């Protein structure tokens, strides 16, 4: 059933978005998107004003990851549009559903280097799942329907609508389709049963199997299926960093993330395993160290929704293409129905537990009271399990990977693919909009927080209180660590000193700033933040020389992991 009405393009955009269930957009107005803003004013959709388009995009991204429905951001043409490119690239690298709507100069001006014209379709091409530039107002309802479908189906991703100003303003007869078909787009494949049967065979005949859970498990919410299979077969679970929290990290079978800053026990055991069930992962270089070393040793069973990921970075013995939740369900059903005759994993499990216990007891951590490990464990103790965590990018992020256990699956989000500093805070605001009843905390570093700290204005004025857990080493710590480790302590461009004062900064925005210099002060600050109805920045000074360890140097295999001495 189609509904036909006469209206301008900008109004059709709002109506079509309302039909998609959009309740709010994150954005910034400008000359070329004023018609959209005028219709936004008249619509029931809430506008959340960002102070920079990049932050608006990250807010939409954070909303999308948590709600698993596309978050929407608005920007004007030209610099407004170029400012969202980092947001699009971040969402693209992490397969996050998102819709970005940019204004564009009028159709007749395109290509004339008009004021605030940018070829955003061209610039964003490699970092969007798809983009549309409607040339007639009448195209808008179908564009919106297709765009939302593309953004959220299959492997999710960002979709861009670049709408020329006259297309927003022109009136047309609008037909709102209920369904759309896109000839060249087949987002879901039914997993091939024979491949799942082969996967089971290989898994059960292995002697030292391991499960590697990636971000795909979180995107498809396959938590229960993953846990059921791990428990039924008693196979230990490691994750990628993006997959952190796909499996409860306090579970006896959990070994935590592998990779550059993976847990020592996870990296050690990953390289001892003889078979890996890899679920929803692209085998990123940050996870596997070196590609060659990984695939030489291991039988790889690869499950992914994206056929192009099969064989891209690692060659698999068996590949199961399809939504990983569906694939795991079928696998689980087969394991339940059939008599499972598996190799005896007991010897392997005993060894796994010994290695795990050894590293959990013997991994050296920084001796200071306010070491990364101690403050992050204090955070874990103090907050409820359903708390949503985001992170920025840098040392604090990797410390979170090492020392913060995610207990409730699907509550930990980070810019893992593109590694975008400044992502965590606006993403936390987006996450809080998606789940207003749950505490949201951005685990931050000072370097990253600097990049989008003006989102404090959004948090305060729009009444979206989140906590910034600011691990402050007064420097661009990860770069500093690399300079200490690989460049003989020739420190350049990493010293941020005590500038700004984050407590005063927070206060100047009308947020709450608390400095925590002991674990008791920290616990108190977290508790105050959890109860606060404005944003709380907890400034936690630490030793600037503290390194993230263990550390697998780039381009080296996991076995060459550098351990704390």
């Amino acid at each position: 059933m189609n509904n036909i009405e006469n209206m301008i393009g900008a109004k059709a955009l709002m109506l079509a978005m309302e039909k998609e269930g959009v309740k709010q957009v994150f954005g910034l107005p400008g000359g070329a998107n004023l018609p959209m803003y005028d219709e936004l004013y008249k619509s029931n959709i809430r506008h959340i004003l960002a102070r920079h388009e990049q932050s608006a995009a990250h807010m939409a991204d954070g909303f999308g990851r948590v709600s698993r429905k596309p978050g929407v951001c608005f920007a004007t043409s030209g610099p407004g549009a170029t400012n969202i490119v980092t947001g699009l690239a971040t969402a693209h690298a992490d397969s996050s559903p998102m819709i970005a709507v940019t204004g564009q100069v009028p159709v007749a001006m395109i290509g004339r280097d008009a004021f605030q014209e940018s070829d955003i379709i061209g610039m964003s091409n490699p970092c969007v799942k798809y983009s549309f530039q409607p040339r007639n107002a009448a195209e808008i309802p179908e564009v919106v329907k297709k765009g939302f479908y593309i953004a959220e189906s299959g492997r999710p991703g960002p979709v861009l609508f670049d709408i020329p100003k006259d297309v927003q303003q022109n009136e047309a007869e609008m037909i709102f389709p209920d369904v759309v078909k896109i000839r060249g787009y087949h987002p879901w494949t039914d997993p091939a049963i024979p491949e799942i049967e082969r996967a089971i065979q290989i898994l059960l005949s292995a002697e030292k199997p391991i499960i590697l859970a990636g971000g795909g498990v979180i995107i498809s919410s396959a938590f229960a299926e993953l846990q059921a299979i791990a428990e039924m077969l008693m196979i230990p679970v490691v994750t990628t960093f993006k997959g952190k929290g796909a499996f409860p990290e306090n579970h006896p079978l959990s070994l935590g993330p592998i990779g550059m800053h993976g847990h020592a026990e996870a990296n050690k055991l990953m390289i001892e395993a003889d078979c890996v069930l890899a679920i929803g992962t692209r085998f990123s270089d940050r996870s596997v160290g070196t590609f060659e070393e990984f695939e030489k040793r291991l039988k790889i069973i690869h499950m992914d929704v994206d056929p192009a990921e099969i064989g891209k970075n690692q060659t698999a013995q068996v590949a199961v293409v399809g939504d990983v939740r569906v694939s795991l369900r079928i696998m689980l059903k087969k394991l339940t129905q059939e008599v499972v005759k598996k190799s005896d994993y007991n010897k392997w499990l005993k060894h796994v537990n010994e290695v795990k216990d050894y590293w959990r007891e013997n991994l050296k951590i920084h001796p200071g009271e306010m070491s990364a490990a101690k403050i992050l464990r204090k955070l874990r103790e103090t907050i409820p399990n359903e708390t949503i965590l985001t992170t920025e990018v840098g040392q604090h992020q990797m410390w979170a990977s090492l020392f913060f256990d995610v207990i409730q699956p699907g509550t930990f989000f980070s810019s893992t693919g593109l590694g975008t500093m400044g992502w965590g805070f606006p993403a936390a605001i987006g996450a809080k909009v998606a789940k207003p009843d749950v505490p949201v905390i951005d685990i931050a570093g000072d370097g990253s927080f600097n990049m989008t700290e003006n989102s404090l204005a959004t948090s305060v004025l729009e009444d979206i209180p989140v906590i910034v857990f600011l691990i402050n080493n007064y420097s661009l710590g990860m770069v500093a660590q690399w300079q200490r480790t690989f460049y003989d302590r020739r420190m350049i461009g990493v010293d941020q000193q005590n500038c700004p004062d984050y407590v005063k900064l927070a206060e100047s925005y009308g947020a709450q700033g608390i400095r925590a210099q002991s674990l008791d002060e920290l616990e108190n600050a977290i508790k105050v933040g959890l109860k606060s109805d404005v944003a709380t920045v907890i400034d936690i000074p630490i030793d600037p020389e503290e390194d993230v360890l263990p550390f697998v140097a780039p381009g080296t295999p996991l076995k060459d992991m550098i351990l704390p001495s």
Partner: protein
Amino acid sequence: MLVILSILVENKPGILWKITHLFRAKNFNIDTISVGVTADPEFSRITICTHGDEKQIRQIVKQLDKMIDTVEVKQLDEHKSVYRELILFKIKINTPSDSMEINKLANSYGAKVHDVKKDSMMVELTAAPDQIKAFEDLARPFGIIETARTGIAALQREGA
């Protein structure tokens, strides 16, 4: 490994650009490319000749398949397809007998001769790439002044 990819796409502006962009972004190379609208004006066919090892080619095909604007991506088997390329050679005429020799050569390849001048002549050859290469080798001693080629057009044989 030389590979011919036959890609059926939506006939819309910007799609050729997206495909060549994908090749660049994924670090693949295009040897030749030919594009044209099909009998059904909703579609265009892009024929790309590329090379790489089996793993790389599989990855190119998957990445192309993943593109929303591609309707069908086929890797053509040279033994099961007809594929042709048109090439124009401008060849030097050094002695009066050259003209006859080149004419004979052109005839034996089913090529057409155009624009015969005192010092040069043009030869139009439509053939499979290996034949073009063979012709080129035989024409080189006369002196090839310049060439222009269309890129390969290819279709799979019915029932193949």
